[in-house]
Every structure is written in C-alpha cells, then in structure tokens.
C-alpha cells in the first residue's frame, strides 16, 4: 500500500463516524426524497427488497397499518416476487403492487419513502448503502453486515444522507427485554458485573462457518433465479439450489456463524443494557470447539463482562439474555417470561398478554414509523447497530483465530494482531461497493 494510502486508510474513512452518536439535526422527513411533494398526513410508503419468510413478517406489519402503504417488491426470485404481490394485492383489494427483477428499478421510484431489506446477509450493507444514496429510509434485517468494515460503512452512509435506519433487532422494543435492559441501566441490579447473551445452538449454526462448496447444479434461467444477482457482492461459486432455498447459512461467504446470527440480537440488548451503544468491548477470549457448548468472554472498558454462550440457559426461549449486578440478576427470552433473583421478585410487573414475538415486532415497526414522522432516532438506529455488529464481528474473529484478542474502539483495530486486523474486511465482488 502506498505511504499516502497508509495514512489515509479505509479505517479512517469510516472509523470516526462509527463511534459517534448519530449526528442528525434535520428531521429525517426533511431529507426524505419526497419532501415538498407530500402532505404530512400522507401514508408512509414502502418497498421491499429480497422478501422471504422473515421479510414477509415485516411486510405484514406494514400492511396492518393505516398510516403506511406497501407499493412494490424487488427480488431475484420470481416465485417470491409473485408471492408478495399476491399477499399485498389481496390486502389492498387491488392490483397495485409492482414487481421488479432488480433493486435499481425500485430504488429509482420517487414515491417510495422507505425500504425493507430482507435479503440474505451478504446483501444487507451494500443494499442499505444503495438505498441511503437513493434517499430512502431503511428497515434492514439482521445481521446487518458481513464485516467490521461494512458495519462502519453502513453507519457512515446513513449519517451521510441523513436518512433513518432501523435494524431488524426488534427485541430492543420487546416489553420483557426493555424491562430487563432498564433494570440494568437504572441500577436496580446494583453495579453491573456481567451481561450474558445467547449465541444460539452451536450444533445448528456453528461459530465457525465452512469454506466448502456444495456440488454444482445447472443454473436456472435468469428470469427464474438470477444467480449472479443472488450472489451479489459474495465471491462466485457454482450454483446449488439449496443455497437459494434458504440454506445459505453456515457458509463463510454468506454467513457470520452463530455468534453474529444471534449476537446481533442478544449482544445488541447487552450493549443497550450497558449504555454502550457508542462503543464495543475491548477484550475477546474464545472457548470451546466448533459445536456446543461454546463461549466468547468479552470485557468492556468499564469492566463489565459480556459473555456470548450457547448453553446453560434457564429455558426462557431463544434470544435469551441475562444481566447480573451486585444487587441481583434478571433473565428473559423470546417466551416473554422473566426470571429474577429472589430479592427482586416482588418488583416484577404482571407479564404482558399475547404473542410475544408478534407484539415485539409490532412495537419495533411502530417505533420506526413514528420516528420517520418525527425525525427522531429509532431504537435500533445505525449507530447502535454498527457498534453491536462490530463487537460481534470481533468476537467472531477471535473465535475463528482461537485466541484472545484486544480491541481498540477508538482506533477501530485489534492491538498487535495483523491477521485479526485483516479479518475486519473482505472484498466485494464488482460492481458492488460500500459507497
């Protein structure tokens, strides 16, 4: 690398922005592309990109709101384009949902305020940056990035264009999780000692994805599945239908393993509980084989521990978290149930009634829509998401290398570890890029 390039590295390009709180000073609707052409009472309009089973839940949420309207879908798979169009048109009793083979056609539309990005992980950051460049607000499924560099670039792009970003880390708005996080933040647990985040099950999505390829199959016609577009920024490999049918997880080119898959939800809650949305842990020590049980022991600069682990939970559901202080502990998960230390049992409110998963998603979507109206930052904004993901990538890198790593959150680099630092990034396949 040239001397000048060394002094103006891509780390510097984004690192400064990655750490700071989101600098939004103009209400977001002012920066939205439709500013000046629509009345405030107008519905907020959305398009969807890469809508599979998970994204369909978000489309359903939009369809259920009187103040929002879903207008169009873009997908490289024709079966998914048609499935979403059918669902949307049935809901609105018309034939208005447009379908596009490419995201460019959808992003070019001036009448769309925001996009739902629910592609595979490999596309999340490049697509978010393209959407930001088009002036769209973004709801993006998690994990939001494939690397530390992507996390930084994502936040930089959102800040650059002043649009709003909500990561699909909906538990930040789930009532049971909010209660647990607030107890940690407000001191009810005493001085915080340790935050535990569920890292899934190592037997399903191990912490170290494979570099293998599945056997080659004949590529379908481009109109049926556009394989080149499906791969997008990922390195080329031969087509196999299993990837396209949702079995792309567990492959290094497409997936960050169990730590990123689950940590993007659960470490995210710990970040907020520790009031650490603007930073990351400084130490990462992996333990275990590439199966269950596995752990990554992390530590924040304020001394609080963060422990990624896939085992020894109390059985309160997926995405469990446990916060421990010197005055007690609290643990909760996707069941909505909450368990606490004996001294705190009298302080628990009655449990919320209803389907915890659906309610949590609903609260998260309402947070996003209300923020688009007000110009406020949503709970899972780009700053919070980027810093959570950087921490998860650091834990993932420590696990891949099998050694303890020290991280400098200011310089955004591992201390004295060239190999780990090189793992902060990976090259995107042309023509996709991070600006």
């Amino acid at each position, binding site marked *: *690398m*040239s*001397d*000048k*390039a*060394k002094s*103006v590295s*891509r780390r*510097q*390009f*984004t*690192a*400064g*922005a990655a750490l700071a709180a989101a*600098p*939004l*000073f*103009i209400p977001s609707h002012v*920066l939205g*592309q439709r*500013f000046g052409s629509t009345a405030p009472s107008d519905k907020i309009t959305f398009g969807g990109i890469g809508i599979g089973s998970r994204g369909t839940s978000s489309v*359903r*949420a939009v369809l*259920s*709101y009187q103040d929002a309207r879903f207008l169009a879908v873009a997908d490289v798979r024709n079966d998914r384009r048609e499935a979403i169009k059918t669902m949307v048109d049935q809901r609105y009793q018309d034939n208005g949902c447009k379908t596009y083979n490419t995201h460019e056609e959808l992003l070019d539309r001036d009448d769309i305020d925001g996009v739902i990005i629910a592609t595979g992980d490999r596309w999340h950051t490049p697509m978010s940056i393209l959407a930001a*460049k088009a*002036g769209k607000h973004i709801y993006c499924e998690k994990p939001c990035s494939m690397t530390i560099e992507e996390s930084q670039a994502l936040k930089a792009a959102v*800040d*650059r*264009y*002043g649009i709003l970003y909500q990561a699909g880390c909906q538990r930040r708005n789930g009532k049971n999780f909010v209660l647990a996080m607030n107890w940690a933040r407000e001191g009810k647990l005493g001085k915080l000692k340790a935050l535990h985040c569920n890292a899934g099950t190592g037997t399903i999505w191990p912490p170290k994805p*494979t*570099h*293998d*390829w*599945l*056997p080659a199959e004949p590529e379908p016609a481009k109109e049926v599945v556009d394989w080149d577009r499906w791969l997008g920024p990922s*390195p*080329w490999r031969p087509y*196999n239908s*299993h990837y396209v049918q949702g*079995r792309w997880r567990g492959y290094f080119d497409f997936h960050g393993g169990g730590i990123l898959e689950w940590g993007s939800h659960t470490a995210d809650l710990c970040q907020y509980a520790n009031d650490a949305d603007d930073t990351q842990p400084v130490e990462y020590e992996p333990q275990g084989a590439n199966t269950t049980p596995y752990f990554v022991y992390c530590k924040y600069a304020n001394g609080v521990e963060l422990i990624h682990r896939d085992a020894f939970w109390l059985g309160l559901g997926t995405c469990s978290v446990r916060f421990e202080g010197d005055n007690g502990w609290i643990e909760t998960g996707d069941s909505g149930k909450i368990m606490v230390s004996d001294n705190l049992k009298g302080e628990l409110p009655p449990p919320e009634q*209803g389907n915890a998963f*659906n*309610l949590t*998603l*609903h609260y998260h979507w*309402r947070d996003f829509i209300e923020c688009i109206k007000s110009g406020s930052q949503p709970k899972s904004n780009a700053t919070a998401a980027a810093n959570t993901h950087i921490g998860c990538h650091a834990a993932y890198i420590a696990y891949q290398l099998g050694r303890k790593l020290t991280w400098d959150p200011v310089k955004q680099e591992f201390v004295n570890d060239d*190999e780990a630092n*090189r*793992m902060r*990034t*990976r*090259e*995107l*396949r*042309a*023509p996709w*890029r991070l*600006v």
Partner: protein
Amino acid sequence: MSQQTAAPAKEAKPAPPKPQRPPVPPVPPEFQADRIMKLDAPSLIRILQDPNSSEFEKSKACMQLALVGDKNAVPALAALLSNPKLSHYARFGLVPIPDPSVDEAFRATLSTAKGTLLVSMIDAIGQRRDTGAVEALKPFVYGSDKDAALAAIASLGMISGPAAPVLLEALQKTSDPLRKEVAAAGLVCAEMFLNRGERQQAMDLYTRLSQPDIPKVVRLAAMHNILAAERH
C-alpha cells in the same frame, strides 16, 4: 393494538404437514476447503502457481492469502487478476496485503482489463485509497464505458485528497445520471477530509455540493453534513 396480531381462528384446523425439504447433499471431496485453509503462505502460493490446481483450490488459496500473505504472494496473486473466474479471488487476496507492489499490480491492469474485470480493478484501487492512481483514473470518468466511469468516480471519492479537484471538474463536465454519482462521491470525499481533520477542505466541498444545481438527495445531504460539522 394493530391488526397485525390476528385473532385465533374460530375453528382450529390441524395444520397441513410441511413438505419435507430434501437433505443438503454431501460436500464433494474436491470442494472441501479445510485442507487448504490450514496451509502456510508458501504452500498457498505453490497452489496458485501449480497448473494442476483446480479453480476451487486456487480460490481458497487466494482467500487465505488475504490473511497470511505478504509481498512474496503478490506476483502469484496478480497473475490471476486477468482470469475471469479467479480475478475477484485474486483481488480478495491482494487488497489486504500492506505492500506498495499491490498498488502497482492493480494500476498495471488498467490498460488491459475490460468490462467487469476493469470495474473490479478500479474498485480495488479505491479500496486501497491509492492516491498515486488519481491521474490514471481520471480518463475513465469521461470514457465510453459507463460502468468503469461509475467505478472511477466512486474510487476518486474514497481516495479523496488529490482526487477532490478531479471530482469538482467532473461536476462541471458531466451530466446526469453520471453527475449525480460525481456529487455523491464528493460527499464521500468530504467525509474523508473531515475524518483526517482537514475541516476547511471538507466544508468547501460540502458548500459546493449544497448549491441549487446539485441533485436534490446530495444537496440535502450536504446541508445536513454542514450542520452536523458545525455542531461538532
């Protein structure tokens, strides 16, 4: 409560059984990567130089060299930059290597590469923040290959510094849709100035990009960034 949380059906019917998905096929021996990902740099370089190595073996060797390669790996990786199947993998391996010979390797491709390979090389130069490539990138901004022009504009934005005058000139000499990309690259360029502490250069650029002749999305973004910079 939203309509999203639907009430349960009045008459619960048993859900139809989900169709069984076929099992994921076993990985064939020729596509198993572990044996390659554990090799040291000299062994990985030998894979790249061996005419009997498969594309799979070479692709994985490139990826691993991204982590453990040094200047000794550059010639073997650079030799693959013109290979349509392996060019991206070679770039994947080369970009993280901290040696000036990598920049020379990418610049050398600019006179011969075409189509997507050319775009990829220009993108790599931007990723490397290669200030020495600014003059070499400039002609692509005005060339007939629109994809190469987009790549060059994006790379100039990332390089920043000496690329800023090139972008300002391009704002005068290009027309939409290319000009919109030039303006967007200007935002990136200004951000780089700010991150390096060169505030005045950043503000000058933002001010230019906030003028009425600039496409609306970029103009609003430039105003937003001026306010943000003022606050900091």
